[in-house]
């Protein structure tokens, strides 16, 4: 392990992986979904993981978020090595440091939009008034005012994703991981969501990492990483911002 002189805790990168592998084995069939990935992602970045279907984007993202464990290698997020944390500690760590946005099934159907958005704050024990005021403020910004009391089933796909994004950023995490957040949405809706996340990225400094096939999202990335067969084959920094 090499120690970079700049890597003091305050300046630790958002994500750093070292020799990361994920190997699935089912009935004797071995799939190397992620192969030897070394990656450092700076704080406040807006990163897209692209690549063909099955190239390992979701697998990599899940490992970074502590949803699945690497077969080999190590992961540090925000200066903390999460590779060996227990399930409970991982969950607690995710609660404090990571926001997730998935393609679908993002919200609990029995909770209202507001209750979904404030859920992680509730788990963290933030008092109700504060939760409410933060979510209401956020809802006003993302054009969700008046829809606080609706259950997900009564929201459009785009509205549901807005709630999910609100929930992901409201706790001011180190990292938001979004796996195809714009899939299944029309381009106007998805462009709106990209604008929203880009704004949160600029205004709050939240680090975003996407796995996506969305060309508009790829265009807006400040760092573009392409995976093929689990390996990084392209890693491009674009300084023309999102």
């Amino acid at each position, binding site marked *: 392990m090499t120690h970079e002189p700049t890597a003091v805790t305050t300046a630790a990168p958002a994500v750093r992986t070292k020799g990361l592998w994920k190997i699935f084995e089912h009935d004797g069939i071995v799939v190397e979904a992620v192969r030897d990935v070394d990656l450092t992602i700076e704080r406040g970045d807006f990163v897209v993981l692209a690549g063909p279907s099955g190239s390992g984007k*979701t*697998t990599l993202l*899940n490992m970074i*978020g502590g*949803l*699945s464990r690497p077969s080999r290698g190590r992961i540090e997020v925000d200066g903390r090595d999460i590779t060996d944390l227990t*399930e*409970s500690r991982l*969950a*607690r*760590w*995710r*609660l*404090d440091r*990571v*926001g*997730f946005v*998935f393609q679908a*099934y*993002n*919200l*609990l*159907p*029995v*909770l209202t939009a507001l*209750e979904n958005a404030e*859920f*992680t704050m*509730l*788990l963290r024990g933030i008092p109700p008034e504060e939760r409410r005021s933060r979510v209401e403020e956020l809802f006003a910004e993302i054009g969700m005012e008046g829809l606080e009391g609706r259950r997900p089933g009564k929201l459009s796909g785009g509205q549901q994703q807005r709630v999910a994004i609100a*929930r992901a950023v409201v706790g001011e995490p180190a990292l938001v991981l979004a796996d195809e957040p714009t899939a299944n949405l029309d381009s106007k809706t998805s462009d709106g969501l990209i604008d929203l996340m880009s704004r949160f990225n600029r205004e709050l400094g939240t680090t975003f990492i996407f796995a996506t096939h969305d060309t508009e999202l790829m265009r807006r990335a400040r760092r573009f990483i392409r995976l093929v067969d689990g390996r990084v084959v392209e890693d491009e920094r674009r300084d023309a911002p999102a």
Partner: protein
Amino acid sequence: MSGPWWRIGWRNLGRNPRRSLFTAGGLAVGYAAVVVMTGLGRGMVAEMIGNGTGILSGQLQVHAEGYLPERSVHETIGGREGIDVDALVGAVAADPTVSAAAPRLYGGGLVSAGDHTLAAGFVGIDPAREPAVSAIMAAGETGRLPGAGENELWIGREMARQLDVDAGDIVVVVAPAADGSLGNDLFTVAGVFRSGLGDVDASVAFIPLDALQQLMALPPGRVHEVAARIADPWDAAAAEERLLGELATDFPGTAPRAWNRFQPEMVEYAALFESMEWVIIVVVFIMAVFGVANTMLMATFERRREFALLLAIGTTPGVILRSVIWEAFVLGVVSLTLGAILTFPVLVWWHNAPPDMSWLYGDFTMAGGLIRPVLRVEYPPEMMVLGAVALFATALLAAVLPAYRAGRLPPADTLAGR
């Protein structure tokens, strides 16, 4: 954390109201079954003990120490000298739980009318006091009770049938007397009773105490027993304890005995019923555990993506486990509410208006206690509480496995639908 999980549990139950109601209904019926069945059991025990002690024996009896179990004619209270009967009756009646007490003398002999002669047991009673002690005194069918000092007889319907007599007829009574002679006299049948107790109706004759003493050549101070009525039979043991002290000085050689001593088979029946209550509660709720667990497993399996999402956004496995347990708790509350709605009206109605089952079966006796053909129900307060505890335990127990599984789901694979 309880607030939201309670709410979420409630709403999750509401997602499949039919299934939830069905599950809660099952638990509610289980609860009702436990409470009503134990209520019926207690009704039967209360009927057995109430009638077994109330009809004739009384809930407490005082004898000479050596009287039981032989019941020798000579073992009268106070020995050959006898005692001040009124004073003893007064002392027994002074106990706070004793509502009435009456003296008795027992004998045996023959009763004849015309060509018919029967062996009979004689019970000498105080016609003024006895009706407050034994319910049989109210079982008269024809005629009236015998009068004090009169040569009168009060016999059961079966004895009357066998002797072919009824109220007003004259019979001859023969009884061995204490002095070895044979007492005999003419008696008038004052009345005929029907108690429902076969033996009593066929072979017991009640005679005024003084008349029987005269027949048996015994002075007025000699009786075998003072029987007492205690409204709640379960108070009798404590009364026995108290009287043991109270009577020791003024009436040495007397032995107060609660019904559980002279009718131990009733105690055994009561214990049997009590152990059956446990069997009922365990069987009912073990059956329920599997039903509820099955439903909970189904319900949590259907929601595995939601649990994975919860895990992904930072809910710990422990909190997820608790959330499922909370849901089971909510189910328990709903079930108990349903159970109470189902149980208590039935129980109250049943208690106050026990259905007449005489179309199905007649009187029968159990451990010597008469059971009337009514479905008597007594409230089983501990079983109401225990049933509720068992219901919650069942719901929570049934949730343990599904809750554990929900917390252990692999979030990545589950979210990917794998």
